[in-house]
């Protein structure tokens, strides 16, 4: 089973929930941090990194001796990443989306592909938990190919927990696509509600079942609960604001270390999710 933890609004406790889930599951789980712009799971789980692989995007390089200046590459490129001009052809690798159209369609076979570094995928172990994360190179804009590279590490025989980026656009969709369930973490404020609504809309389109976790459930108002009622979204868990949790988080301490009594609640959360998904979970407390 693959469970993505998403949020719409950032800073609502998505990483806290994802890391708590794998902590109670132990060796039956793997965690994949798909928030490649700002991966934070490692701060709470402190994994030992065992492998680091660079992820590249193929971008064009032009052999001007073979080039006949026909202009085809510039015509097919939708991103202004390759431009025939004057008596030359210029490639702008940072604008390239790596589709391969220019090299494939060049009649002179004058274009070959060279790698552009997008970032790295790291794997390792956090105690008994298998750990995978992507880290985008600073200055690089294109995260979806890197997220896809992280997701190639999903194994069928474990419960895979994906920590999604905040928001509701392409990086989130790339992450949650193919998941069996999405846990949405939010906070009961107007911002939390607004962004939850957007994220729920985005994921609804993919047809994946969802459930809600309300973090800091005693701040703000009741509008998120009303939203869950109206949309028939299961409210999976509420985590009240607690100074011990906030202080622990500040120092990079996982929630179930600050508040051990939450272990059972997270086990129940996994059972509830498995139930909704309609399969007994491999990871539950049995």
């Amino acid at each position, binding site marked *: 089973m693959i469970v993505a933890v998403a949020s719409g609004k950032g800073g609502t406790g998505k990483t806290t929930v994802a890391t708590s889930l794998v902590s109670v599951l132990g060796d039956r789980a793997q965690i994949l941090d798909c928030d490649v712009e700002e991966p934070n799971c490692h701060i709470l789980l402190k994994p030992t990194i065992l492998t680091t692989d660079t992820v590249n995007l193929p971008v064009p390089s032009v052999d001007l001796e073979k080039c006949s200046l026909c202009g085809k590459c510039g015509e097919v490129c939708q991103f*202004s990443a390759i*431009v025939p*001009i*004057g008596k*030359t052809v*210029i490639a*702008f690798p940072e*604008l390239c989306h790596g589709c391969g159209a220019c090299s494939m369609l060049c009649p002179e076979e004058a274009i070959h592909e060279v790698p552009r570094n997008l970032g790295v995928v790291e794997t390792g172990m956090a105690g008994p938990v298998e750990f995978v994360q992507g880290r985008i190179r600073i200055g690089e804009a294109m995260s979806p190919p890197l997220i896809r590279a992280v997701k190639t590490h999903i194994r069928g025989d474990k419960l895979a927990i994906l920590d999604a980026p905040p928001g509701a656009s392409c990086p989130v969709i790339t992450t949650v696509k193919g998941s069996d369930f999405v846990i949405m973490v939010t906070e009961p404020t107007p911002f939390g509600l607004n962004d939850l609504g957007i994220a729920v809309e985005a994921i609804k389109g993919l047809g994946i079942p969802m459930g809600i976790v309300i973090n800091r459930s005693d701040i703000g108002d009741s509008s998120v609960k009303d939203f869950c009622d109206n949309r028939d979204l299961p409210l999976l868990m509420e985590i009240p604001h607690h100074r011990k949790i906030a202080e622990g988080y500040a120092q990079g301490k996982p929630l179930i270390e600050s508040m051990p009594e939450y272990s059972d609640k997270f086990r129940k959360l996994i059972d509830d999710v498995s139930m909704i998904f309609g399969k007994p979970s491999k990871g539950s407390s049995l």
Partner: protein
Amino acid sequence: MKIAVTSTGKTIESVIDPRFGRAPFIVIVDDDCNLIEAIDNSKNVNAFRGAGIQAAKTIADRKVDLLLTGRCGPNAFTTLQAAGIKVGAEQSGTVREAVERVKRNEVPLADKPNAEAHW
């Protein structure tokens, strides 16, 4: 010589738009500031990336020799250089005023971009 000037309007009395890729119009004139063409650049104005590159291609296709504008980013500059188009940057006032400055040899030619890559 053909001179291209980024502009807020379609005439030689229009005020220069300092942005190259995203100026609403590019006015093309001859040495004596006779209007040859006013290119509607609006489809480029809201382009995401590569607006400068496309604008450079547009004026290269019209065999322009000199571009007068305000700011020119690195991708546009590279493209203009490849096309052999010279750049007079930091220009302001009207199209006519800028062209007259060229005649009086008061416009230094840029040897590097003077803006960050624009998205």
